[in-house]
């Protein structure tokens, strides 16, 4: 038997349902400040039994999926009671971050996650990853086993938040045939001033080749413009910031980015890649570019197949500084907070396995990432790929990135916007960088300063 409802009654029932729903819907994050920040509970790890299964979310940096599977296989062989499920979290660090952060809304989060230089700090501040000092001790690994300059990148609030994994530096890649045609030395320039002298000759000598564009190609801005531009900024004595002090509009920074704009607009020997500068180089469309050392193995392979001679070198210096002008980059491995201690212990065993001396050498050989363990034996890699020596040598003269890029939420996005205006829209450099400074300072004041531990 059915009951007839009038329109009024129906609306009343629907309204009441929506009202109830409105109250029920107001779930989500806690607003009483009770669950933020560093997890306080201490665990006696010696009493914990590692879980039988954990998950590892990765973007397979440097096209390393097969290598990661091999390393997982070796881990499972060494620890037959633990299974590791490899999850593809996306094509890059940003997509992995997106999935990891949205997974926090549910009950199933990945145990181990690849976190780039830009992301780990945000996870640490928002409490989604665990400080791992005690866990490292529990699995008998010391932070001194890692390359000091790389593991110290993940220190905050007197705690260690990650171990270095796929760590890279940018390299200067160049087409030796193009350089030879121009009669310039077949080597990376020592300074940008030197390259600026070579560039018009390189462009003139190769401009008749089909599809040839520029002597130098700046990496695509949608990629990591803020990362690679630090090289030019530091060389000229500038920078995006000095710790939390934003220096993007300093005289030296303005001079550096004015030079960048002139190389594209006034002198016209440089361009900006639309998608991927290293593939532009591989296609013979440009004579030189800067790209991650993670591209080394694939670039050399592609060059060999195309009968092209590609060289690599240190990043060029500037008028104020020739070294260190190379930023570190890449990613580390973090452990999620929102899992059980059993899984966290298994995760700690896994991340130390992935980054031990033997396995970091395996990853380096397959990709071009820098070895992260002090004890890594890279002699076999060097004999097979002599160019890898540049990665190792340059690693000794790297500089930690500017806070404005790595620690400010949206910092790299704002740097990219400013770079777009300067490099693609020919905007006034000084005015653009002044605006950028204001934006970055506002982000720091609102989103970072209140959350920093004193």
């Amino acid at each position, binding site marked *: 038997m059915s009951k007839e409802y009038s329109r009024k009654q129906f609306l009343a029932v629907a309204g009441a349902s929506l009202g109830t729903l409105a109250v029920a819907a107001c779930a989500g994050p806690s607003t009483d400040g009770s669950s933020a920040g560093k997890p306080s509970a201490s665990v006696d790890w010696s009493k914990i039994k590692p879980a039988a299964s954990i998950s590892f979310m990765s973007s397979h940096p440097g096209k390393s999926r097969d290598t990661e599977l091999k390393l997982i296989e070796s881990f499972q062989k060494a620890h037959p009671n633990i299974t590791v499920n490899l999850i593809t979290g996306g094509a890059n660090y940003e997509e992995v971050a997106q999935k990891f952060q949205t997974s926090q809304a549910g009950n199933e989060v990945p145990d181990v996650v690849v976190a780039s230089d830009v992301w780990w700090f945000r996870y640490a501040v928002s409490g989604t990853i665990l400080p791992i000092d005690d866990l490292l001790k529990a699995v008998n690994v010391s932070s001194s086993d890692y390359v000091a300059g790389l593991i110290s990148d993940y220190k905050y609030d007197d705690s260690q938040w990650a171990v270095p994994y796929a760590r890279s530096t940018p390299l200067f890649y160049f087409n030796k045939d193009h350089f030879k045609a121009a009669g310039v030395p077949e080597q990376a320039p020592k300074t940008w001033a030197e390259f600026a002298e070579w560039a018009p000759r390189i462009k003139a000598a190769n401009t008749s080749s089909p599809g040839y564009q520029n002597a130098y190609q700046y990496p695509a801005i949608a990629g990591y413009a803020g990362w690679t531009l630090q090289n030019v900024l530091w060389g000229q004595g500038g920078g995006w910031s000095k710790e939390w002090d934003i220096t993007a509009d300093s005289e030296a920074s303005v001079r550096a980015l004015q030079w960048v704009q002139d190389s594209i607009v006034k002198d016209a020997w440089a361009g900006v890649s639309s*998608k991927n500068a290293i593939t532009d180089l591989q296609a013979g469309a440009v004579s030189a570019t800067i790209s991650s050392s993670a591209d080394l193995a694939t670039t050399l392979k592609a060059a060999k197949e195309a009968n092209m001679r590609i060289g690599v070198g240190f990043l060029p210096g500037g008028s104020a500084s020739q070294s260190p002008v190379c930023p570190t980059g890449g990613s580390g491995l973090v452990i999620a907070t929102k899992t059980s201690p059993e899984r966290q212990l298994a995760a700690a065993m896994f991340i130390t396995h992935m980054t031990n001396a033997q396995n970091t050498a395996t990853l380096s050989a397959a990709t071009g990432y820098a070895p992260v363990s002090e004890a890594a034996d890279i002699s076999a890699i060097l004999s097979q790929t002599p160019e890898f020596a540049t990665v190792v040598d340059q690693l000794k003269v790297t500089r930690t990135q500017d806070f404005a890029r790595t620690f400010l939420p949206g910092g790299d996005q704002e740097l990219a916007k400013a770079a777009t205006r300067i490099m693609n829209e020919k905007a006034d450099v000084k005015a653009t960088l002044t605006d950028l400074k204001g934006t970055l300072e506002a982000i720091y004041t609102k989103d970072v300063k209140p959350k920093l531990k004193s």
Partner: protein
Amino acid sequence: MAFAAPNVILIILFTYRPLITNIYFSTLDWTLGAASATSVGLGNYVEFFSSPDAANVLGVTAIFTVTTVGGARALGLLVALALNQKLKGRTFARAVVFAPYVLSGVGVGLVWLFIFDPTYGALSWFLRSLGQISPQWVNDPKLALVMIIVVYIWKNLGYCAVVYLAGLQSIPPQLMEAASLDGATSFRRFRTIVVPLLSPTTFFLLITSLLSSLQAFDIIRIMTPSGNGTSTLIFDSYVQAFGSYNRAGYSAAISVVLFAGLLIMTAVQLRFVERKVHYS
């Protein structure tokens, strides 16, 4: 009531509940993934409307919406008029015109990105063969907007064409014949008979295209991942939450602004534009 209950429950759960939750989130200062947040009332809305980016985002949204809705409908009508003629291969042509609409936006974006690529793209190859240099479609924000508008119109033009074609075929042929006998030119017949009788179709397309354009995301995300010059309201909402800003509360506020805009525009169309529609 009982008969409608399953649907009503599903709609409440999967449409209204997220909507209300989103409105609640828009009142929080909440970093995506964090377990805690701070209530800021209308702070996110105040910040959005007073930010220097708001004018740009709203401007890009307006340009994208007006050009894609107008362009797809105008070109769709022209194509429908052509496909309404008794031409050889007409059925095949109708299928070809409609095909892009059912293709995945991601696939369409990737293919067109290859076409527009200034280094290896098909368009750059063609321009080079004419001795010209390809414009920087992705790097130049103005050209990037033109690029995604062109692709979006291309993808949706088939939908408008097919709907218009159905509208054209429902016009009684006697009316056209009578007008011809009275000496009306083809343009006059189009203006005074076809356009008024197509007004219900045009109105339907206006509403559906407007809603779809304001929610366009896949092509923009694939072709211009940084949103350089192409940051519409929905794209900005995505970037604020899932880009490196991680501002879930602020992003929710932008979504509410978009929702309010859609609601107002639909209401205005139903209230005022529909008056000018001739249903018979």
